[in-house]
């Protein structure tokens, strides 16, 4: 198998030396079946051991190798070099502070994921030991797609709303909240309502749809957010008309 040389322009930032990020170019002999992560690993192993970046599984499961490749937020383990031109620009995920080189600070979204209470909340007593919360295939189908998120944060890097307003809860966290709201075993919808219906919740989304376009796992957070808007509006009118709300 032959190799093709590509120019990898990598954003570098050393918090102890640099005032701002800069680009360093590496020439990498890539094999036909390489993904961008292979090329970055080649740099680390053979050309420059100081390069900092995150990765783990190399198979679209761990969600840690998200980066900007030619301006597009992608999983670098899923992005083939053969589909790219001879010059490839690698930057850390947009909209996040740069910790060092290609490593970003994710504290903000971690806190937001926690904020939406992404777990099953029950208001009644737990079932007896020999019983369980029943879930049909039909009720699972309502949210299964949303469980595919691997927290790679490509959606936050693509979201212009999050770029402008860091208080916006954002695509992945909202999609996760919707996943639990749609779960028939959950009774915590009203607990999540204050956060989701707030200005920085679903209503801050103007439906650019970029999050869903870049999502490597086809979670479609934009759809989840629009559905939450519809749910929120229905709840609002139910309350106005004195109709009892959701079970929770």
């Amino acid at each position, binding site marked *: 198998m032959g190799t093709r040389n590509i120019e990898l322009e990598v954003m570098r*930032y050393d*918090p*102890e030396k*640099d005032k*701002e*990020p800069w680009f360093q170019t590496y020439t990498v002999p890539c094999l036909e079946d390489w993904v961008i992560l292979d090329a970055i690993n080649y740099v680390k192993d053979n050309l420059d051991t100081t390069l900092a970046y995150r990765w783990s599984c190399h198979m679209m499961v761990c969600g840690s190798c998200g980066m900007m490749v030619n*301006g597009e937020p992608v999983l670098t383990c899923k992005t083939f070099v053969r589909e790219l031109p001879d010059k490839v620009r690698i930057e850390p995920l*947009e*909209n996040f*502070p*740069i*910790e060092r080189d290609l490593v970003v*600070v994710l504290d903000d979204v971690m806190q937001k994921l926690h904020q939406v209470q992404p777990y099953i909340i029950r208001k009644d007593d737990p079932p007896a030991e020999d019983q369980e919360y029943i879930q*049909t*295939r*039909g009720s699972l*189908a*309502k949210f299964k797609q949303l469980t595919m998120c691997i927290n790679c944060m490509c959606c936050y890097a693509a979201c*212009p709303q999050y*770029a*402008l307003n860091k208080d916006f809860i954002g695509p992945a966290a909202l999609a996760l909240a919707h996943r639990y709201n749609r779960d028939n075993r959950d009774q915590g919808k009203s607990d999540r309502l204050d956060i989701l219906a707030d200005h920085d919740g679903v209503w801050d989304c*103007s*439906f*650019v*749809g*970029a999050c*869903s*376009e870049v999502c490597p796992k086809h979670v*479609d957070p*934009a*759809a989840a957010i*629009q*559905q939450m*808007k*519809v749910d929120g509006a229905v709840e609002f009118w139910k309350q106005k008309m004195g109709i009892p709300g959701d079970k929770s």
Partner: protein
Amino acid sequence: MSRNPYVRPVSTTTWYMRHGRYKVYVLRELTSFLVMFYSFLTLVGLSALAASAERWDAFLASQQGTGMMVFHAVALFYFLFFQTFPWFKLAPKAMPVQVGEKKVPDNTIIIGHYVAWAVLSLFIFWLAGVL
């Protein structure tokens, strides 16, 4: 080693120039001005109709100059469709329908919107005496 995270600046006025999909979004949002214009035009037309036959004829005549016709053609067939087509396409995202265990295919919902649009349009044409 000390932490000193670097925050990349984002322009609040030119952010949409960063990517093609943002430009498409801004164009779509700008078409809302045309929606506003047509709402206003409808009010003007209705008030002319309510006022007198002369005012109504004058209103109709004012819309039939070459410049206005070109404007209507561009506005309706490009900008408003630029708004309508994407929204129909996005409808199954905002309003997914599930029957039993199966999700109704997106295309069924999208085609449903076009059919409803055509039926309503025909009804309005019939009301207006065009058909």
